[in-house]
Protein backbone atom coordinates (compact mmCIF):
# COMPACT_ATOMS: atom_id res chain seq x y z
CA UNK A 1 0.00 0.00 0.00
CA UNK A 2 2.04 2.89 -1.29
CA UNK A 3 1.50 6.25 0.31
CA UNK A 4 0.60 8.92 -2.23
CA UNK A 5 1.56 12.54 -2.30
CA UNK A 6 -1.85 13.65 -1.07
CA UNK A 7 -1.56 11.38 1.94
CA UNK A 8 1.88 12.72 2.76
CA UNK A 9 0.40 16.21 2.73
CA UNK A 10 -2.46 15.11 4.96
CA UNK A 11 -0.11 13.54 7.50
CA UNK A 12 2.08 16.62 7.39
CA UNK A 13 -0.98 18.70 8.21
CA UNK A 14 -1.91 16.39 11.08
CA UNK A 15 1.64 16.81 12.39
CA UNK A 16 1.52 20.58 11.73
CA UNK A 17 4.67 20.32 9.65
CA UNK A 18 5.11 22.58 6.70
CA UNK A 19 6.88 20.62 3.98
CA UNK A 20 8.08 22.32 0.84
CA UNK A 21 7.45 20.94 -2.61
CA UNK A 22 11.05 19.80 -2.81
CA UNK A 23 10.74 18.00 0.52
CA UNK A 24 7.56 16.14 -0.37
CA UNK A 25 8.98 13.73 -2.91
CA UNK A 26 11.90 12.41 -0.81
CA UNK A 27 9.68 12.24 2.27
CA UNK A 28 7.13 10.23 0.32
CA UNK A 29 9.86 7.92 -1.01
CA UNK A 30 11.40 7.41 2.42
CA UNK A 31 8.04 6.79 4.02
CA UNK A 32 7.26 4.14 1.44
CA UNK A 33 10.67 2.54 1.86
CA UNK A 34 10.14 2.34 5.59
CA UNK A 35 6.60 1.01 5.25
CA UNK A 36 7.86 -1.64 2.90
CA UNK A 37 10.35 -2.65 5.54
CA UNK A 38 7.49 -2.89 8.06
CA UNK A 39 5.88 -5.57 5.90
CA UNK A 40 8.20 -8.03 7.62
CA UNK A 41 6.03 -7.75 10.71
CA UNK A 42 3.09 -9.19 8.80
CA UNK A 43 4.62 -12.65 8.84
CA UNK A 44 4.88 -12.88 12.62
CA UNK A 45 2.59 -15.07 14.65
CA UNK A 46 1.19 -12.57 17.13
CA UNK A 47 -1.95 -14.39 18.14
CA UNK A 48 -2.61 -14.00 21.87
CA UNK A 49 0.28 -11.61 22.34
CA UNK A 50 -0.52 -8.74 24.69
CA UNK A 51 0.45 -5.47 23.04
CA UNK A 52 0.69 -3.62 26.37
CA UNK A 53 2.88 -5.99 28.31
CA UNK A 54 5.52 -3.72 29.76
CA UNK A 55 5.76 -6.25 32.57
CA UNK A 56 9.16 -4.95 33.46
CA UNK A 57 7.67 -1.76 34.88
CA UNK A 58 6.48 -1.28 38.45
CA UNK A 59 2.95 0.06 38.80
CA UNK A 60 2.83 3.82 38.57
CA UNK A 61 3.79 5.47 41.86
CA UNK A 62 1.37 7.85 43.59
CA UNK A 63 2.33 11.31 44.67
CA UNK A 64 1.00 12.82 47.89
CA UNK A 65 -1.50 15.59 47.35
CA UNK A 66 0.64 18.45 48.60
CA UNK A 67 0.76 21.72 46.70
CA UNK A 68 3.98 23.66 46.49
CA UNK A 69 4.93 26.56 44.31
CA UNK A 70 7.77 26.61 41.82
CA UNK A 71 10.34 29.37 41.75
CA UNK A 72 11.24 29.13 38.04
CA UNK A 73 8.14 30.87 36.71
CA UNK A 74 9.93 34.04 35.64
CA UNK A 75 12.58 32.03 33.78
CA UNK A 76 9.90 30.04 31.97
CA UNK A 77 7.99 33.16 30.96
CA UNK A 78 11.15 34.86 29.77
CA UNK A 79 11.62 32.00 27.29
CA UNK A 80 8.30 32.84 25.64
CA UNK A 81 8.80 33.86 22.01
CA UNK A 82 6.07 36.46 22.53
CA UNK A 83 5.49 37.36 26.13
CA UNK A 84 2.66 39.67 27.07
CA UNK A 85 2.91 40.56 30.75
CA UNK A 86 2.04 37.43 32.69
CA UNK A 87 0.89 35.64 29.56
CA UNK A 88 2.22 33.71 26.60
CA UNK A 89 0.83 35.29 23.45
CA UNK A 90 -0.33 33.58 20.25
CA UNK A 91 -1.46 35.10 16.95
CA UNK A 92 -5.05 35.18 15.74
CA UNK A 93 -6.79 31.83 16.12
CA UNK A 94 -8.99 31.02 13.16
CA UNK A 95 -12.13 29.18 14.16
CA UNK A 96 -12.01 25.55 13.21
CA UNK A 97 -8.30 25.71 13.82
CA UNK A 98 -8.60 23.38 16.78
CA UNK A 99 -8.36 20.33 14.51
Amino acid at each position, binding site marked *: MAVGEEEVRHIAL*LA*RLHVTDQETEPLQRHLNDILEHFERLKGLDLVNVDP*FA*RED*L*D*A*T*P*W*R*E*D*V*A*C*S*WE*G*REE*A*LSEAPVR*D*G*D*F*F*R*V*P*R*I*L*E*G*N*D*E
Partner: protein
Amino acid sequence: MRQPGSPVIGLEIHVQVATESKLFCACSTDYIGAVPNTHVCPVCLGQPGSLPVINGRVVEYAVRTALALGARVGKSTRFHRKNYFYPDLPKAYQISQYDRPLAEGGALPIGEGENRKEIPITRLHLEEDAGKLVHSAADGRLGHSEYSLVDYNRGGVPLMEIVSEPEISTPAEAREYVATLRQLVRYLGVSDGDMEKGSLRVDANVSLTGADGKLGTKVEIKNMNSLRALERALDYEIARQADLIRKGESVRQETRHWDDGNGLTCGTRGKEEAHDYRYFPEPDLPALVLPDGFVEKQRDIMPEMPWILKERFVTDWGLSLQDAAVLTELPGLSRYVEDCVREGADPQRAANWIRTEVLRVLNEKRIGIEDFGVPAENLSPLLVKIDRGELSTTLAKTVFDRMVAEGLTALEALEKIGAPSGRLTGERLRNVIERVLEKESSAVEEIKSGKDPKGKKRGFLCGQIMREARGQADPEEVAKTLSRFLGC
Protein backbone atom coordinates in the same frame (compact mmCIF):
# COMPACT_ATOMS: atom_id res chain seq x y z
CA MET B 1 -38.19 0.82 20.15
CA ARG B 2 -38.24 4.55 20.63
CA GLN B 3 -40.95 6.70 19.11
CA PRO B 4 -39.76 8.44 15.95
CA GLY B 5 -38.81 11.99 16.76
CA SER B 6 -38.17 11.36 20.43
CA PRO B 7 -35.02 12.98 21.82
CA VAL B 8 -32.02 10.88 22.78
CA ILE B 9 -29.61 12.65 25.09
CA GLY B 10 -26.26 11.55 26.46
CA LEU B 11 -24.16 13.70 28.76
CA GLU B 12 -20.41 13.94 29.19
CA ILE B 13 -19.57 15.73 32.37
CA HIS B 14 -16.14 16.97 33.36
CA VAL B 15 -15.89 17.32 37.11
CA GLN B 16 -12.93 19.11 38.63
CA VAL B 17 -11.57 16.98 41.45
CA ALA B 18 -11.12 18.96 44.67
CA THR B 19 -7.46 18.36 45.42
CA GLU B 20 -4.73 20.67 46.65
CA SER B 21 -2.35 19.92 43.80
CA LYS B 22 -2.70 19.15 40.12
CA LEU B 23 -3.12 15.71 38.56
CA PHE B 24 0.50 15.22 37.50
CA CYS B 25 2.50 17.90 39.34
CA ALA B 26 2.59 19.68 42.68
CA CYS B 27 1.21 23.02 41.46
CA SER B 28 -1.78 24.41 43.31
CA THR B 29 -5.23 23.87 41.77
CA ASP B 30 -6.46 27.15 43.23
CA TYR B 31 -6.36 29.03 39.94
CA ILE B 32 -9.42 31.24 40.21
CA GLY B 33 -8.34 34.84 40.55
CA ALA B 34 -4.65 33.92 40.60
CA VAL B 35 -2.10 35.95 38.66
CA PRO B 36 -1.76 34.22 35.26
CA ASN B 37 0.97 31.59 34.95
CA THR B 38 1.83 31.51 38.64
CA HIS B 39 0.57 28.00 39.43
CA VAL B 40 2.92 26.44 36.91
CA CYS B 41 6.03 24.26 36.82
CA PRO B 42 8.06 22.38 34.18
CA VAL B 43 5.47 19.57 34.10
CA CYS B 44 2.29 21.59 33.54
CA LEU B 45 4.11 23.97 31.20
CA GLY B 46 5.07 21.04 29.00
CA GLN B 47 8.76 21.85 29.35
CA PRO B 48 10.93 19.42 27.37
CA GLY B 49 12.17 16.61 29.60
CA SER B 50 9.52 16.98 32.30
CA LEU B 51 7.48 13.96 33.35
CA PRO B 52 4.09 13.34 34.98
CA VAL B 53 3.60 11.66 38.37
CA ILE B 54 0.03 10.95 39.44
CA ASN B 55 -1.65 12.49 42.48
CA GLY B 56 -2.92 9.66 44.70
CA ARG B 57 -5.80 11.66 46.13
CA VAL B 58 -7.32 12.03 42.68
CA VAL B 59 -7.44 8.26 42.45
CA GLU B 60 -9.10 8.02 45.89
CA TYR B 61 -11.75 10.58 45.03
CA ALA B 62 -12.46 9.12 41.63
CA VAL B 63 -12.79 5.63 43.08
CA ARG B 64 -15.26 6.93 45.68
CA THR B 65 -17.31 8.60 42.98
CA ALA B 66 -17.26 5.44 40.90
CA LEU B 67 -18.38 3.37 43.89
CA ALA B 68 -21.21 5.80 44.61
CA LEU B 69 -22.39 5.30 41.04
CA GLY B 70 -22.16 1.55 41.41
CA ALA B 71 -19.54 1.39 38.68
CA ARG B 72 -17.00 -1.40 38.26
CA VAL B 73 -13.62 -0.06 39.30
CA GLY B 74 -10.73 -1.42 37.25
CA LYS B 75 -7.95 -3.01 39.28
CA SER B 76 -5.38 -2.07 36.65
CA THR B 77 -6.05 0.75 34.23
CA ARG B 78 -3.88 2.95 32.06
CA PHE B 79 -3.47 6.37 30.58
CA HIS B 80 -3.38 7.35 26.94
CA ARG B 81 -2.25 10.43 25.11
CA LYS B 82 -4.84 12.32 23.11
CA ASN B 83 -2.88 14.30 20.53
CA TYR B 84 -4.03 17.62 19.14
CA PHE B 85 -2.59 21.07 18.71
CA TYR B 86 -4.01 24.01 20.60
CA PRO B 87 -2.21 26.68 22.59
CA ASP B 88 -3.94 25.82 25.87
CA LEU B 89 -2.51 22.29 25.66
CA PRO B 90 1.20 22.73 26.42
CA LYS B 91 2.41 19.25 25.48
CA ALA B 92 0.12 19.14 22.43
CA TYR B 93 -1.45 16.08 23.97
CA GLN B 94 -3.82 15.58 26.84
CA ILE B 95 -3.11 12.73 29.22
CA SER B 96 -6.42 10.95 29.49
CA GLN B 97 -7.81 7.44 29.77
CA TYR B 98 -9.07 5.71 26.69
CA ASP B 99 -9.58 1.99 26.32
CA ARG B 100 -9.22 1.13 29.97
CA PRO B 101 -10.90 3.83 32.08
CA LEU B 102 -10.79 3.86 35.88
CA ALA B 103 -14.40 2.65 36.09
CA GLU B 104 -17.15 1.40 33.83
CA GLY B 105 -20.89 0.80 34.22
CA GLY B 106 -23.09 1.84 37.11
CA ALA B 107 -26.02 4.22 37.15
CA LEU B 108 -27.26 7.42 38.67
CA PRO B 109 -30.82 7.34 40.04
CA ILE B 110 -32.83 10.46 39.35
CA GLY B 111 -36.41 11.52 40.13
CA GLU B 112 -38.75 10.39 42.87
CA GLY B 113 -41.46 7.78 43.25
CA GLU B 114 -43.27 7.29 39.94
CA ASN B 115 -40.66 9.31 38.07
CA ARG B 116 -37.70 7.51 39.50
CA LYS B 117 -35.33 6.39 36.78
CA GLU B 118 -31.81 5.08 36.65
CA ILE B 119 -29.55 6.68 34.06
CA PRO B 120 -26.85 4.15 33.16
CA ILE B 121 -23.25 5.32 33.26
CA THR B 122 -20.86 4.32 30.50
CA ARG B 123 -17.56 5.19 32.13
CA LEU B 124 -15.64 7.37 34.51
CA HIS B 125 -12.10 8.31 33.64
CA LEU B 126 -9.34 10.67 34.73
CA GLU B 127 -7.73 13.36 32.63
CA GLU B 128 -5.93 16.65 32.91
CA ASP B 129 -7.56 20.02 32.26
CA ALA B 130 -6.23 22.46 29.66
CA GLY B 131 -5.06 26.00 30.31
CA LYS B 132 -7.13 29.07 29.58
CA LEU B 133 -7.15 31.40 26.62
CA VAL B 134 -7.96 35.06 26.99
CA HIS B 135 -8.95 36.70 23.72
CA SER B 136 -7.83 40.19 22.89
CA ALA B 137 -11.09 41.45 21.37
CA ALA B 138 -13.13 43.97 23.33
CA ASP B 139 -16.00 41.50 23.47
CA GLY B 140 -13.60 38.78 24.59
CA ARG B 141 -14.52 36.60 21.62
CA LEU B 142 -12.19 34.44 19.63
CA GLY B 143 -13.53 35.43 16.22
CA HIS B 144 -12.82 39.12 16.73
CA SER B 145 -9.41 38.83 18.34
CA GLU B 146 -6.11 39.87 16.80
CA TYR B 147 -4.28 37.63 19.22
CA SER B 148 -4.91 35.52 22.29
CA LEU B 149 -3.14 35.14 25.62
CA VAL B 150 -2.45 31.85 27.33
CA ASP B 151 -2.60 31.19 31.06
CA TYR B 152 -1.55 27.69 32.15
CA ASN B 153 -2.74 27.97 35.77
CA ARG B 154 -5.65 25.64 35.06
CA GLY B 155 -3.57 23.33 32.89
CA GLY B 156 -3.14 19.96 34.58
CA VAL B 157 -5.95 20.40 37.10
CA PRO B 158 -7.50 16.96 37.68
CA LEU B 159 -10.81 16.13 36.01
CA MET B 160 -13.11 13.15 36.22
CA GLU B 161 -15.02 12.68 33.02
CA ILE B 162 -18.32 10.94 33.65
CA VAL B 163 -20.11 9.76 30.54
CA SER B 164 -23.75 8.68 30.61
CA GLU B 165 -25.41 6.29 28.22
CA PRO B 166 -27.68 8.09 25.77
CA GLU B 167 -30.74 7.22 27.82
CA ILE B 168 -31.88 10.64 28.90
CA SER B 169 -35.19 11.46 27.23
CA THR B 170 -36.01 15.05 28.06
CA PRO B 171 -34.24 18.31 28.88
CA ALA B 172 -35.84 18.17 32.32
CA GLU B 173 -34.36 14.73 32.89
CA ALA B 174 -30.99 16.00 31.76
CA ARG B 175 -31.26 18.82 34.25
CA GLU B 176 -32.25 16.41 37.00
CA TYR B 177 -29.32 14.14 36.10
CA VAL B 178 -26.80 16.95 36.33
CA ALA B 179 -28.35 18.30 39.53
CA THR B 180 -28.18 14.84 41.10
CA LEU B 181 -24.62 14.29 39.97
CA ARG B 182 -23.63 17.71 41.25
CA GLN B 183 -25.18 16.92 44.59
CA LEU B 184 -23.38 13.59 44.65
CA VAL B 185 -19.91 15.01 44.07
CA ARG B 186 -20.54 17.69 46.68
CA TYR B 187 -21.93 15.13 49.06
CA LEU B 188 -18.81 13.01 48.62
CA GLY B 189 -16.64 16.09 48.99
CA VAL B 190 -14.76 15.24 45.79
CA SER B 191 -15.65 18.46 43.97
CA ASP B 192 -17.38 21.75 44.60
CA GLY B 193 -19.48 21.00 41.51
CA ASP B 194 -19.83 24.67 40.66
CA MET B 195 -21.08 25.04 37.09
CA GLU B 196 -20.59 28.78 36.96
CA LYS B 197 -16.95 28.52 38.02
CA GLY B 198 -16.47 25.74 35.51
CA SER B 199 -15.68 23.03 38.03
CA LEU B 200 -18.56 21.04 36.54
CA ARG B 201 -18.85 21.26 32.76
CA VAL B 202 -21.55 19.58 30.74
CA ASP B 203 -21.36 18.56 27.10
CA ALA B 204 -24.54 17.09 25.67
CA ASN B 205 -25.00 14.77 22.73
CA VAL B 206 -28.45 15.18 21.25
CA SER B 207 -30.19 13.37 18.46
CA LEU B 208 -33.78 12.60 17.50
CA THR B 209 -34.94 9.08 16.83
CA GLY B 210 -35.52 8.58 13.11
CA ALA B 211 -38.67 7.27 11.45
CA ASP B 212 -37.05 3.82 11.44
CA GLY B 213 -36.61 3.99 15.20
CA LYS B 214 -32.84 4.22 14.84
CA LEU B 215 -30.67 6.93 16.32
CA GLY B 216 -30.41 10.08 14.26
CA THR B 217 -27.32 12.19 13.65
CA LYS B 218 -25.66 13.24 16.88
CA VAL B 219 -24.98 16.90 17.62
CA GLU B 220 -22.70 17.88 20.46
CA ILE B 221 -23.57 20.98 22.46
CA LYS B 222 -21.09 22.81 24.66
CA ASN B 223 -20.89 25.90 26.79
CA MET B 224 -23.83 25.54 29.16
CA ASN B 225 -22.88 27.18 32.41
CA SER B 226 -25.94 26.53 34.56
CA LEU B 227 -28.72 24.01 34.94
CA ARG B 228 -31.12 26.49 33.40
CA ALA B 229 -28.82 27.01 30.43
CA LEU B 230 -28.58 23.25 29.97
CA GLU B 231 -32.32 22.82 29.89
CA ARG B 232 -32.84 25.77 27.56
CA ALA B 233 -30.07 24.66 25.22
CA LEU B 234 -31.52 21.18 24.95
CA ASP B 235 -35.02 22.54 24.39
CA TYR B 236 -33.69 24.75 21.65
CA GLU B 237 -31.59 22.06 20.02
CA ILE B 238 -34.37 19.48 20.01
CA ALA B 239 -36.71 21.98 18.39
CA ARG B 240 -34.05 22.93 15.86
CA GLN B 241 -33.43 19.34 14.85
CA ALA B 242 -37.16 18.55 14.72
CA ASP B 243 -37.62 21.55 12.49
CA LEU B 244 -34.86 20.42 10.12
CA ILE B 245 -36.36 16.95 9.89
CA ARG B 246 -39.84 18.35 9.31
CA LYS B 247 -38.47 20.39 6.44
CA GLY B 248 -36.84 17.30 5.03
CA GLU B 249 -33.34 18.63 5.69
CA SER B 250 -30.62 16.59 7.29
CA VAL B 251 -29.00 17.20 10.65
CA ARG B 252 -25.27 17.86 10.34
CA GLN B 253 -22.92 16.06 12.71
CA GLU B 254 -21.17 18.91 14.44
CA THR B 255 -20.32 20.66 17.67
CA ARG B 256 -22.56 23.61 18.53
CA HIS B 257 -22.11 26.23 21.20
CA TRP B 258 -24.91 27.46 23.42
CA ASP B 259 -25.28 31.23 23.30
CA ASP B 260 -27.10 31.99 26.52
CA GLY B 261 -27.65 35.66 25.75
CA ASN B 262 -29.42 35.00 22.47
CA GLY B 263 -30.92 31.70 23.55
CA LEU B 264 -29.67 29.61 20.66
CA THR B 265 -27.01 27.08 19.67
CA CYS B 266 -24.64 27.96 16.89
CA GLY B 267 -22.22 25.82 14.92
CA THR B 268 -18.58 26.74 14.51
CA ARG B 269 -18.42 28.35 11.10
CA GLY B 270 -15.03 26.98 10.13
CA LYS B 271 -14.53 23.67 8.40
CA GLU B 272 -14.99 20.71 10.72
CA GLU B 273 -11.75 18.92 10.11
CA ALA B 274 -11.95 15.27 10.94
CA HIS B 275 -10.45 14.66 14.34
CA ASP B 276 -7.56 12.28 14.50
CA TYR B 277 -6.38 12.21 18.08
CA ARG B 278 -3.93 9.40 17.48
CA TYR B 279 -4.52 7.95 20.93
CA PHE B 280 -1.74 5.68 22.18
CA PRO B 281 -0.67 4.41 25.62
CA GLU B 282 1.15 7.10 27.64
CA PRO B 283 4.70 5.72 27.86
CA ASP B 284 5.62 8.02 30.76
CA LEU B 285 3.07 6.40 33.10
CA PRO B 286 3.11 2.69 33.96
CA ALA B 287 -0.21 0.99 34.71
CA LEU B 288 -2.37 2.53 37.43
CA VAL B 289 -2.80 -0.41 39.78
CA LEU B 290 -5.05 -0.15 42.83
CA PRO B 291 -3.40 -1.88 45.79
CA ASP B 292 -5.20 -4.82 47.40
CA GLY B 293 -7.91 -3.63 49.75
CA PHE B 294 -7.87 -0.11 48.34
CA VAL B 295 -11.36 -0.20 46.87
CA GLU B 296 -12.78 -1.81 50.00
CA LYS B 297 -11.19 0.87 52.15
CA GLN B 298 -12.69 3.62 50.03
CA ARG B 299 -16.06 1.94 50.30
CA ASP B 300 -15.77 1.81 54.09
CA ILE B 301 -15.11 5.49 54.51
CA MET B 302 -17.87 6.59 52.17
CA PRO B 303 -21.04 8.13 53.61
CA GLU B 304 -24.45 6.59 52.91
CA MET B 305 -25.60 7.72 49.47
CA PRO B 306 -27.92 10.71 49.57
CA TRP B 307 -30.70 9.00 47.61
CA ILE B 308 -30.75 6.11 50.08
CA LEU B 309 -30.82 8.48 53.04
CA LYS B 310 -33.56 10.50 51.42
CA GLU B 311 -35.71 7.44 51.06
CA ARG B 312 -35.07 6.48 54.65
CA PHE B 313 -36.00 9.93 55.92
CA VAL B 314 -39.29 9.76 54.03
CA THR B 315 -40.32 6.22 54.91
CA ASP B 316 -38.93 5.90 58.45
CA TRP B 317 -39.50 9.42 59.68
CA GLY B 318 -42.40 10.48 57.53
CA LEU B 319 -40.65 13.59 56.30
CA SER B 320 -41.79 15.28 53.13
CA LEU B 321 -39.69 14.82 49.99
CA GLN B 322 -38.66 18.45 50.09
CA ASP B 323 -37.52 18.21 53.70
CA ALA B 324 -35.61 15.02 52.95
CA ALA B 325 -34.02 16.56 49.87
CA VAL B 326 -32.77 19.60 51.75
CA LEU B 327 -31.45 17.54 54.63
CA THR B 328 -29.53 15.17 52.36
CA GLU B 329 -27.94 17.89 50.28
CA LEU B 330 -24.66 17.46 52.16
CA PRO B 331 -23.43 14.65 54.34
CA GLY B 332 -22.77 17.03 57.24
CA LEU B 333 -26.37 18.14 57.35
CA SER B 334 -27.85 14.66 57.18
CA ARG B 335 -25.45 13.53 59.90
CA TYR B 336 -26.56 16.49 62.01
CA VAL B 337 -30.25 15.72 61.73
CA GLU B 338 -29.59 12.07 62.45
CA ASP B 339 -27.62 13.03 65.56
CA CYS B 340 -30.45 15.27 66.75
CA VAL B 341 -32.95 12.44 66.40
CA ARG B 342 -30.59 10.03 68.12
CA GLU B 343 -30.36 12.49 71.02
CA GLY B 344 -34.12 12.35 71.41
CA ALA B 345 -35.53 15.05 69.13
CA ASP B 346 -38.63 14.36 67.08
CA PRO B 347 -37.60 13.95 63.41
CA GLN B 348 -40.19 16.36 62.02
CA ARG B 349 -39.40 18.92 64.72
CA ALA B 350 -35.66 18.53 64.00
CA ALA B 351 -36.22 18.78 60.24
CA ASN B 352 -38.26 21.98 60.60
CA TRP B 353 -35.85 23.57 62.98
CA ILE B 354 -32.80 22.75 60.88
CA ARG B 355 -34.39 23.86 57.62
CA THR B 356 -35.45 27.20 59.08
CA GLU B 357 -33.23 28.16 61.99
CA VAL B 358 -29.98 26.27 61.44
CA LEU B 359 -29.77 26.91 57.69
CA ARG B 360 -30.64 30.58 58.30
CA VAL B 361 -27.65 30.91 60.61
CA LEU B 362 -25.38 28.98 58.22
CA ASN B 363 -26.39 31.24 55.36
CA GLU B 364 -25.94 34.38 57.40
CA LYS B 365 -22.54 33.30 58.56
CA ARG B 366 -21.63 31.71 55.21
CA ILE B 367 -20.34 28.63 56.92
CA GLY B 368 -20.88 24.91 56.57
CA ILE B 369 -22.53 22.71 59.16
CA GLU B 370 -19.06 21.47 60.13
CA ASP B 371 -18.27 24.92 61.48
CA PHE B 372 -21.64 25.42 63.16
CA GLY B 373 -21.18 26.20 66.86
CA VAL B 374 -24.22 24.35 68.19
CA PRO B 375 -23.65 20.61 68.20
CA ALA B 376 -26.59 18.24 67.80
CA GLU B 377 -26.41 17.20 71.44
CA ASN B 378 -27.00 20.83 72.47
CA LEU B 379 -29.81 21.51 70.01
CA SER B 380 -31.68 18.31 70.76
CA PRO B 381 -32.71 19.19 74.39
CA LEU B 382 -34.10 22.48 73.15
CA LEU B 383 -36.25 20.69 70.58
CA VAL B 384 -37.43 18.20 73.22
CA LYS B 385 -38.54 21.08 75.44
CA ILE B 386 -40.61 22.57 72.66
CA ASP B 387 -42.30 19.26 72.07
CA ARG B 388 -43.05 18.86 75.75
CA GLY B 389 -44.62 22.28 75.83
CA GLU B 390 -41.98 23.41 78.24
CA LEU B 391 -40.85 26.18 75.92
CA SER B 392 -42.81 28.29 73.50
CA THR B 393 -41.37 28.39 69.98
CA THR B 394 -40.76 32.10 70.35
CA LEU B 395 -38.82 31.69 73.54
CA ALA B 396 -36.97 28.74 72.04
CA LYS B 397 -35.77 30.93 69.14
CA THR B 398 -34.43 33.48 71.58
CA VAL B 399 -32.68 30.71 73.47
CA PHE B 400 -31.32 29.31 70.20
CA ASP B 401 -29.92 32.68 69.15
CA ARG B 402 -28.08 32.93 72.46
CA MET B 403 -26.74 29.42 72.00
CA VAL B 404 -25.43 30.36 68.58
CA ALA B 405 -24.03 33.71 69.62
CA GLU B 406 -22.27 32.55 72.75
CA GLY B 407 -21.76 28.87 72.17
CA LEU B 408 -23.97 27.90 75.09
CA THR B 409 -25.96 24.81 75.89
CA ALA B 410 -29.74 25.16 76.00
CA LEU B 411 -29.78 25.32 79.82
CA GLU B 412 -26.99 27.88 79.98
CA ALA B 413 -28.80 30.04 77.46
CA LEU B 414 -32.08 29.77 79.35
CA GLU B 415 -30.34 30.89 82.49
CA LYS B 416 -28.77 33.86 80.72
CA ILE B 417 -31.98 35.22 79.30
CA GLY B 418 -33.41 35.46 82.77
CA ALA B 419 -35.60 32.47 82.69
CA PRO B 420 -35.26 30.77 86.07
CA SER B 421 -31.71 29.75 85.99
CA GLY B 422 -31.32 26.19 85.10
CA ARG B 423 -33.77 23.64 86.34
CA LEU B 424 -36.03 24.51 89.26
CA THR B 425 -35.37 21.96 91.91
CA GLY B 426 -35.43 21.60 95.67
CA GLU B 427 -36.09 24.74 97.64
CA ARG B 428 -36.86 26.93 94.59
CA LEU B 429 -39.26 24.40 93.14
CA ARG B 430 -41.03 24.04 96.52
CA ASN B 431 -41.44 27.84 96.66
CA VAL B 432 -43.08 27.87 93.25
CA ILE B 433 -45.39 25.00 94.22
CA GLU B 434 -46.39 26.73 97.45
CA ARG B 435 -47.29 29.87 95.50
CA VAL B 436 -49.44 27.93 93.05
CA LEU B 437 -51.17 25.90 95.75
CA GLU B 438 -52.04 29.09 97.61
CA LYS B 439 -53.61 30.55 94.48
CA GLU B 440 -55.44 27.34 93.56
CA SER B 441 -56.62 26.36 97.06
CA SER B 442 -60.02 25.18 95.84
CA ALA B 443 -58.45 22.63 93.53
CA VAL B 444 -56.23 21.49 96.40
CA GLU B 445 -59.23 20.97 98.56
CA GLU B 446 -61.01 18.93 95.92
CA ILE B 447 -58.05 16.65 95.44
CA LYS B 448 -57.54 16.17 99.16
CA SER B 449 -61.19 15.23 99.58
CA GLY B 450 -60.88 12.60 96.84
CA LYS B 451 -62.94 14.42 94.23
CA ASP B 452 -60.32 14.03 91.51
CA PRO B 453 -60.37 10.31 90.61
CA LYS B 454 -59.14 10.86 87.03
CA GLY B 455 -56.31 13.14 88.16
CA LYS B 456 -57.61 16.06 86.06
CA LYS B 457 -57.19 18.63 88.81
CA ARG B 458 -53.77 17.26 89.61
CA GLY B 459 -52.81 17.63 85.99
CA PHE B 460 -54.09 21.16 85.98
CA LEU B 461 -51.93 21.97 89.02
CA CYS B 462 -48.85 20.49 87.36
CA GLY B 463 -49.46 22.64 84.31
CA GLN B 464 -49.82 25.75 86.45
CA ILE B 465 -46.58 24.92 88.24
CA MET B 466 -44.72 24.36 84.97
CA ARG B 467 -45.98 27.63 83.60
CA GLU B 468 -44.94 29.45 86.78
CA ALA B 469 -41.53 27.81 86.37
CA ARG B 470 -41.39 28.91 82.73
CA GLY B 471 -40.94 25.36 81.76
CA GLN B 472 -37.71 25.11 83.69
CA ALA B 473 -38.63 22.15 85.84
CA ASP B 474 -38.58 18.46 85.42
CA PRO B 475 -42.23 17.32 85.09
CA GLU B 476 -41.55 14.14 87.04
CA GLU B 477 -39.97 16.01 89.88
CA VAL B 478 -42.90 18.46 89.85
CA ALA B 479 -45.37 15.59 90.09
CA LYS B 480 -43.47 13.93 92.93
CA THR B 481 -43.03 17.13 94.94
CA LEU B 482 -46.66 18.05 94.41
CA SER B 483 -47.73 14.66 95.76
CA ARG B 484 -45.66 15.28 98.85
CA PHE B 485 -47.38 18.67 99.37
CA LEU B 486 -50.79 17.19 98.88
CA GLY B 487 -49.96 14.24 101.06
CA CYS B 488 -51.38 11.85 98.50
